[in-house]
């Protein structure tokens, strides 16, 4: 009984604190993710309040959080959107991944962490936070803008790339080298192809497993079956070393129509709860004392991370025929990193790659999750001012393009 009491007190305290912090975050208009990470740092290892009794629960909750994050991500997209986005913005996606993985890979090699850590760091710096970005674009009223479909298509490609990347990382982390892990990797990618094929071709059948799309909606059944199916597939995927997260992502993609919409509605509150637990868990396992030594590297990565994303967005928007201001808006919108960088870092930390990788990833995401929305907000006035200055000096530059206010 005493044990149960301490679990309740610890969990209740943590969740209530997160609620208060989340409220502050939404007041300030910043994503709660960095706040949750800080809360995790404050609680756990080396922090102010060590959590003992609830640790096991939080660990499992964090794993479920990853599954739910990827499941709801998959539910956002239909298979058609994925294929369409890939076809339309493939070059932009390739540029995005190359440009933005490079700083992470370079940092890992410069720090002497080796190949596996380099692959992990590349993933951490490459992938934007679609959650933060979609929220920011909606809040700033930019959904109608010409560059927005470009931004969203780049995110789609990143998410698809993640479906291939996560099994590779999982195999690498299990075997440490590609050569030794190649059989596992082959099985993993084979399984991925099969599941993706089933998801694309037999989406109605998979959907029917969760709920009959023609019957009257029953939220309770949808909740239980969608979550159950996602956890089952995630578990099997994990067994095959494909990574649980990818299994859940594919289940999300395979579900379609009103059932997917229903599942998204009932799972979102659950996702918010367990994702918060996941961010806290990551923070818990990072010793705050280890942050200052990596802060310089994290800041350098943040600066290059802003620059490479702005360049990506600028290039992709230019390809779509968007004018200068919109190109910079697209770039700034892509800056935010968040949940998926932590998901990747979490895999590496639990496999025990480099002891400094966790703190570095945590501080990087802390910086980028705050910088991203700020960049998106202030890119317009900054770009406008820059354009005005450029136009004032050489008179010839004024004919550059359709500038705002003309």
């Amino acid at each position, binding site marked *: 009984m005493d044990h149960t009491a301490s679990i309740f007190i610890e969990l209740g305290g943590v969740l209530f604190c997160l609620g208060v912090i989340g409220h502050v975050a939404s007041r300030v208009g910043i994503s709660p993710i960095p706040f949750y990470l800080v809360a995790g740092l404050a609680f756990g290892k080396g922090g102010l309040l060590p959590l003992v009794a609830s640790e096991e629960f939080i660990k499992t909750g964090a794993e479920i959080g990853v599954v739910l994050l990827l499941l709801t991500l998959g539910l956002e997209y239909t298979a058609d959107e994925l294929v369409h986005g890939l076809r339309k913005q493939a070059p932009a996606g390739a540029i995005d991944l190359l440009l933005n993985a490079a700083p992470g890979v370079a940092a890992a090699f410069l720090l002497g962490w080796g190949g596996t850590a380099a692959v992990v760091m590349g993933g951490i710096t490459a992938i934007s936070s679609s959650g933060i970005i979609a929220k920011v674009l909606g809040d700033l009223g930019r959904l109608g803008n*010409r560059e927005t479909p470009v931004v969203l298509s780049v*995110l789609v490609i990143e998410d698809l790339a993640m479906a291939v990347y996560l099994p590779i990382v999982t195999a690498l982390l299990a075997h440490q080298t590609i050569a030794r892990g190649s059989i596992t990797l082959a099985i993993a990618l084979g399984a991925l192809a099969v599941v993706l094929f089933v998801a694309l071709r037999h989406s109605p059948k998979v959907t029917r497993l969760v709920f009959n799309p023609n019957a009257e909606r029953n939220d309770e059944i949808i909740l239980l079956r969608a979550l159950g199916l996602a956890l089952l597939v995630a578990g099997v995927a994990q067994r095959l070393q494909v990574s649980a997260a990818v299994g859940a992502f594919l289940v999300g993609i395979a579900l379609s129509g009103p059932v997917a919409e229903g599942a998204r509605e009932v799972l979102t509150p659950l996702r918010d709860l367990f994702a918060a637990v996941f961010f806290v868990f990551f923070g818990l396992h990072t010793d705050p004392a280890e942050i200052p030594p990596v802060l310089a590297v994290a800041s350098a990565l943040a600066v290059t991370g802003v620059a490479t994303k702005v360049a990506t967005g600028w290039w992709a928007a230019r390809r779509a025929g968007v004018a200068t201001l919109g190109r910079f808006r697209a770039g700034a919108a892509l800056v935010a990193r968040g949940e998926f960088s932590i998901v990747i870092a979490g895999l590496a930390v639990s496999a025990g790659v480099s002891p400094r990788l966790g703190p570095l990833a945590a501080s990087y995401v802390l910086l980028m999750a705050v910088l991203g929305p700020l960049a998106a907000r202030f890119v317009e006035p900054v770009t406008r001012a820059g354009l005005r200055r450029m136009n004032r000096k050489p008179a010839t530059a004024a004919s550059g393009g359709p500038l705002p206010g003309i």
Partner: protein
Amino acid sequence: MDIEETALPGIGLRHEFNTRGGRRVGVVSRHKGRRDLVIYDAGDPDSVAESLTLNAEESDALSELLGAPHIVEKLADLSKVFAGLVGEQIRISPDSPYAGGLLGDTQARTRTGASIVAVVRDHEVLASPRPDFRFEPDDVVVVVGTPDNTAAVAELFRTG
């Protein structure tokens, strides 16, 4: 008029078009029936100058306000679809015996064979009015039937 449709993966769909006055308007359809009405910057076609978020109920109300005249026009076009049937709009004059009276009291369908399918009041379409519907002066009654039948309804509203 060209309506351009753009997929916003993970968010929904966007439809936009140019007005005759040269402005660009769009509607972003999001999940759960949420809509954003967006008006583009007059000088910069890439950016939205004004964005208004509407919930399902509000966007329904707005579309009803904007769409009412069109619905009536479409009802009037019914004659082209069903040969022999016409849609007629009849205004209830203040001196009509049924101004202020109940729809049920007209016994329009029994007496004429034509059906009252809608009433337009203050640009609002009240579809499928029930027998306890009370007419007001200047209501426009939309009647569907053969030309003879609808003419009989017009006569009925005029003279009782």
